């Protein structure tokens, strides 16, 4: 068996960082990253970006050496992705925050509202309902992170956790402040409005969960395969006929429901910002699907049926 030689150069300075000899032809990039890590312990595999070209795309961990367009002496370029943090850690942190923060406002912990309101509860039943819905939503997200989602990437840049937490925690505090405020005004159309809102919210929560399960089942455990999602026996997944990312569609629906339930402008703002971000993600995902699969259903839109 002919062995390869692998040299790794810095993508910017072109300095020779590492030379590996007697590398198996069937070695994967992941294995090469581990070997590189041995000589440079500060660069653990998750923060290595290995490419064929200094300005090119990162190679995947699964790529096999002998299937790459390299000679028996392979030259790779390395870029440091910076400190990394696992997706699971980020998700758990960014979701635990809103859960706890909202409850602090709900229970009117001291120093938020005037002292005479400390540890009192709102007299409006919709406020209790909103707390249950908000808490349910984030508990669901935490459980999905732990037991449902199968992540494509193990890690993301460390700075993302600060960005993401600021976003989630900040908005949670902002909306919780008003919903649990002693001067909170319940929805204009009262019980009718709240009932409709709750229905929409629950429907979309179940829908969102159904999509997460369907996506999980597309992917065998421990794998990173990508397949076209299709409607299953669960009616909540039939939306796949019209939309590429129905998880985002349902998420938008949940927050519209919550906005209607609380009739609170900060909630509407959060819904809007979330919608914009999810649309960006949905369009990206939709484009990847189209690129990767020749036979991708043409009826589907990224996030809103026929519209967006």
């Amino acid at each position, binding site marked *: 068996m002919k062995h390869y030689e692998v040299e790794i150069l810095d993508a910017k300075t072109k300095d020779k960082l590492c030379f590996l000899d007697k590398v198996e032809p069937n070695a994967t990039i992941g294995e090469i990253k581990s070997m590189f890590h041995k000589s440079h312990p500060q660069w653990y595999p998750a923060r290595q970006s290995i490419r064929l070209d200094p300005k090119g795309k990162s190679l995947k961990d699964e790529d096999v050496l002998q299937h790459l367009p390299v000679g028996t002496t392979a030259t790779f370029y390395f870029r440091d992705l910076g400190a990394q943090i696992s997706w699971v850690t980020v998700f758990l942190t960014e979701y635990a925050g809103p859960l706890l923060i909202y409850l602090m406002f709900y229970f009117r912990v001291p120093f938020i509202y005037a002292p005479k309101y400390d540890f009192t509860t709102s007299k409006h039943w919709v406020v209790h309902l909103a707390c249950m819905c908000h808490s349910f939503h984030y508990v669901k997200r935490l459980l999905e992170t732990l037991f449902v989602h199968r992540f494509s990437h193990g890690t993301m840049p460390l700075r993302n956790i600060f960005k993401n937490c600021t976003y989630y925690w900040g908005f949670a505090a902002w909306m919780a402040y008003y919903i649990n405020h002693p001067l909170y005004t319940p929805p204009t159309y009262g019980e009718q409005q709240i009932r409709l809102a709750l229905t929409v919210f629950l429907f979309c929560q179940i829908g969102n969960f159904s999509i997460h399960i369907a996506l999980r089942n597309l992917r065998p455990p421990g794998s990173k395969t990508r397949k076209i999602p299709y409607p299953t026996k669960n009616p909540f997944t039939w939306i796949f006929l019209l939309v590429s990312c129905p998880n985002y569609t349902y998420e938008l629906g949940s927050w519209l429901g919550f906005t209607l339930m609380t009739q609170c*402008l900060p909630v509407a703002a959060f819904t809007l910002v979330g919608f914009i971000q999810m649309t960006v993600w949905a369009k990206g995902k939709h484009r990847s699907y189209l690129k990767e699969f020749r036979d991708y259903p043409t009826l589907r839109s990224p996030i809103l049926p026929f519209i967006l």
Partner: protein
Amino acid sequence: MSAPAMGTSKTAHTDSSHKKKKGPGTLATAYLVIYNVVMTAGWLVIAVGLVRAYLARGSYHGLYYSIEKPLKYFQTGALLEILHCAVGIVPSSVVLTGFQVMSRVFLTWAVTHSVREVQSEDSVLLFVVAWTVTEIIRYSFYTFSLLNHLPYLIKWARYTFFFVLYPMGVAGELLTIYAALPYVQKTGLYSITLPNNYNFSFDYHTFLILVMISYIPLFPQLYFHMIRQRKKVLGHVEEYSKVE
């Protein structure tokens, strides 16, 4: 924050003849030349207005009123620059330009125009003068750059005057916002209180304080950015041929 020496670093590179330029088309260039000429003229009008009013009154107090209208017109007109970036005829970041123009517009309308009592403050003159000198230089810089006939003096001025104009403008802006605070608090200007049907509140007074605080991280960043740009653009003085 309204940086007196605002504008993009990318335009600095239009003088390097060896860099590949993918600038605006002919029609866009013609439009931009007209735009920049008009803006240069506008800020010159403001400059002249200030000088004339000063000579007429014999003091520099209350000069704001003599240039209030052109200031509003031409500063607000700069909103077009966001559009130029969005459309792509100017190679700058929409976000950065938007932020810079909006902060100027904010100071012009949401502070100086809205809080009548600060209009007679000397701090207003401080930032108006800083803006005026900066903009005259900046818009003539763009005009000449577009016509590929940039006098070294203008380039030098653009990347040197900011040393003084920038802090001067920031000082004027901060002092003006600070002066506005008591009136905003007293009248509850632009503020929304609870309870209301949309369960939302906004305290403009607190907001203005937060704006002032935001100058602390932002001002040094922009200032040092300009210093770095200056080194890049003016650093190799011997290698640059003076353009006639």
